[in-house]
């Protein structure tokens, strides 16, 4: 090897990469649960993700928080086990079990060693088919949730995230409300509501099971049919209505006494995920705020030093989406930071440079194999396949689809997807320090909200 090294020259890539995408197998169990399976056998692990489309978007008007509360009570006792007993059964196997609730769905994750596959699935089957949903556990979990809601009041980050959804999606939109719910609503939920929710929404025919790991289709079909067969009831559909709010440029302020920083959220509604535009929007966002060397982070962090980080994303839900830019900055730089953000959004509508697009493509495409490294990464890819109903060849065509995007398409996407006149700017911070800065940005017009997003009349 040549030992005279010229450090000024950046080394090139060594040849091309070979990478094989995992093959997805689909099948359906006797109870109508559909299964997506990807074989991965470098370790004796299996990871199961059960997606049930029963998230908080189905929470009725006075029952915000129902889906989440249901998810919390689901594993608080089933079959012959109480809550502690169930958790013991998983622990003794070294299995990890978790239930989470999102806007669109409830996700149950089970990670197990292969040697404990049967027993882990047996317990999962018991939870799905014989949950107690008993009064005592329900009341206890409800009290815990109510206390958690109270705790949110002192977290500027959480307040900003929750209230921004309310502002952007607008009253009445199923995505406008916090998954955890509101105090008055949670207070009004009864154990019967939870039991009804289980019967109507938490059903195998409304779910998909994603399996990644060391197994084969035949073995899986047998064990899954064996242990999940008792979960059988069927789904009762609810139609959701998604109204679109009136969007005008507005600045909202939530006062947080004594805050030393301001949490900033800027964004508006966006089109739901659509494969025709998805790739151009992805690359556009990479350039604007989707990664460390984006325009926004370089400006706000690496140039101005206003923040520890500033990022943007298209936040795709099943039936809608939002464009969201978030950062937190010290109080004295709040107005300046918002000004820079608005400037960047106007600027990118004038177009991106060829080399910016090349960078975004190169980064995304070359990173692609790494997105399938861990069991949870493979599962995460399959989750988006299911939630957004993507075709099975989506992963195979991914790189081609990205490569095809032109500067022209990205520039069109910028015009179509960023609307400065519709932006909502939400700031959570100390009013005494930032109100004047914010007023200067919008001819004196700042709308004050309480922490849950209700207008405060001044």
């Amino acid at each position, binding site marked *: *090897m040549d*030992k005279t*090294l010229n*450090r000024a020259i*950046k*080394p*090139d*890539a*060594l040849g091309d*990469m*070979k*990478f094989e995408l995992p093959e997805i197998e689909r099948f359906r169990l006797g109870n109508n649960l559909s299964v997506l399976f990807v074989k991965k056998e470098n*370790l*004796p*692990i299996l990871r199961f993700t059960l997606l049930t489309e029963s998230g908080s978007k189905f929470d009725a008007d006075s029952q915000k928080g129902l889906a989440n509360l249901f998810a919390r009570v689901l594993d608080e006792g089933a079959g012959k086990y109480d*809550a*502690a007993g*169930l*958790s*013991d059964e998983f*622990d*003794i*196997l*070294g299995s990890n079990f978790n239930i989470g609730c999102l806007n669109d769905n409830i996700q149950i994750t089970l990670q197990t*060693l292969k*040697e404990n596959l049967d027993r882990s699935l047996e317990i999962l089957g018991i939870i799905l088919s014989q949950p107690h949903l008993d009064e005592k556990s329900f009341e206890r979990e409800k*009290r*815990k949730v109510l*206390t*958690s809601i*109270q*705790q949110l009041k*002192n*977290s*500027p980050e959480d307040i900003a995230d929750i209230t921004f959804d309310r502002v952007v999606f607008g009253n009445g939109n199923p995505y406008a409300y916090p998954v955890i719910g509101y105090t008055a609503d949670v207070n009004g939920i009864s154990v019967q509501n939870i039991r009804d929710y289980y019967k109507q929404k938490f059903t195998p025919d409304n779910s998909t099971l994603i399996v990644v790991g060391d197994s084969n289709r035949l073995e899986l079909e047998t064990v899954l049919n064996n242990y999940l067969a008792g979960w059988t009831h069927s789904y009762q559909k609810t139609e959701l209505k998604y109204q679109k709010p009136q969007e005008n440029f507005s600045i909202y302020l939530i006062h947080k*006494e*004594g805050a*030393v*920083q301001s949490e900033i959220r800027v964004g508006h509604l966006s089109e739901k995920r659509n494969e025709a535009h998805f790739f151009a929007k992805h690359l556009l966002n990479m350039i604007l705020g989707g990664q460390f*060397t984006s325009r926004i982070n370089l400006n706000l*962090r*690496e*140039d101005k*030093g*206003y*923040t*520890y980080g500033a990022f943007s994303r298209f936040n795709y839900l099943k039936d809608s989406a939002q464009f969201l830019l978030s950062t*937190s900055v*010290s109080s004295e730089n709040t107005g300046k930071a918002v000004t820079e953000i608005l400037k960047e959004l106007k600027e990118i509508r004038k177009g991106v440079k060829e080399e910016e697009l090349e*960078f975004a493509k*190169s*980064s*995304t*495409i*070359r*990173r692609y*194999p*790494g997105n399938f*490294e*861990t069991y949870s990464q493979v599962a995460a890819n399959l989750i988006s396949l299911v939630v957004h109903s993507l075709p099975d060849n989506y992963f195979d065509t991914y790189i081609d689809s990205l490569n095809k995007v032109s500067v022209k398409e990205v520039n069109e996407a910028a015009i179509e997807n960023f609307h400065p006149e519709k932006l909502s700017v939400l700031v959570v911070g100390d009013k005494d320090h930032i109100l004047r800065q914010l007023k200067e940005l919008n001819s004196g017009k700042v709308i004050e909200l309480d922490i849950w997003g209700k207008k405060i009349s001044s």
Partner: protein
Amino acid sequence: MIKVNMDLLNIAYEKYKLKNGLEVILHHSPSLPLVSVNIWYRVGSANEKKGKTGIAHLFEHMMFQGSKNVPKELHFRYIQEAGGTLNGSTSFDRTNYFEKVPSNFLELALWLESDRMGFLLPALTQEKLTNQIGVVSNERLERYDNQPYGLAWEILSSNLYPDGHPYSWPTIGFMDDIKSYTLDDVSSFFKKYYSPSNAALVIAGDFQKEKIKDLVAKYFEDIPSQNSSSGESESSLNIINNKFEKNILIERDENVQLERIYLAWHSDKIYGQHDNSFDVLSDILTGSKSSRLTKHLVYDTEMAQDVSAYQFSGKYAGHYMIIATAKPGTKLNKLKEEILNEIENIGKNGVSEKELVKSKNLIKSSFIYSMQNLDVLADQLNHYNFYLNEPNSFNYDLKRYEEVTNESVKNLISSFLTRPFVELQIKPVNKK
């Protein structure tokens, strides 16, 4: 017990040293077309001094600001362009830098790491320093000052450890210190601690076995070794064992909704003979729904919204913490009493075989689960090399958990947890 084949945790590696003192650890694993490069420098906030805190972490930021042959911002950009991921982190004992790239870009990662290891100073400017002082100040505000209970750690450690002890200040540093740093501070820090002889480089994953050593030599061999520190903290180490004689109580009113109590005891250092038993004790106290404190405080009596226990252990010392958030209406002193009762109970009656098996099985499976990620594996090789001088210590590490017994857990109570402790009570500010 879980029977899984423990050969999975036997990680083959080759370790050698370059003439400039850089340790190199190679682990070949071509199952995916990825390679991780992971460097540990033997310097952390424990090497700082009182009044000059936070420089190890601020320095970590400066390492991403470009070096002689890499313009500002391009370090990040080059790795991202190659489809890689990267970051760095600072702890009490060490600072690490890592990237994971498609294997055909290994040389790029080595070029970048070697350029900043050898040639950072020519690219250092006041503008970059001023900028990163702004970024780090905001990091401190965002992650600590503006978080509910965000200052608890630094209050506890400054009371738990005597003045001047290397663990008595937070890694992020105090705001006044962060804002005080000059270019001279940064460049002397580099000269003192960033010599190749004070670092270890792990390369793990898919690389060409027959070429890798030449490649490492090409980029790292000519970096001169500096007259560098031993890596040991300069703070007076004889004060480390200077334990306090009476309980210390700190009460604070903050912008929080619920009262929270923190109890902290001196415990054992990392890989000390009690370190493993403390981890198992944490599982038994608060590791799951059926764990003792969780079941009693969160489930049966609902006195607490949450409770957690954990062992922090580093090179110079360790401490054991139990933290509980009170439900509205519960007095913190009542929570404290319940926690101390349970500790006393374990001290007298010990724990059950079932509790031990549960904890050991969870630990064992977590070792297997952690093997999924090449970055984690590479970092762990460096971790074991740093603390145990043996990168392949996975089975050793697991074995020390298997050796935990009822007696070794009981013994923690009499040896550590019946000694004086620091108690921090945080309560909501009284609104008029």
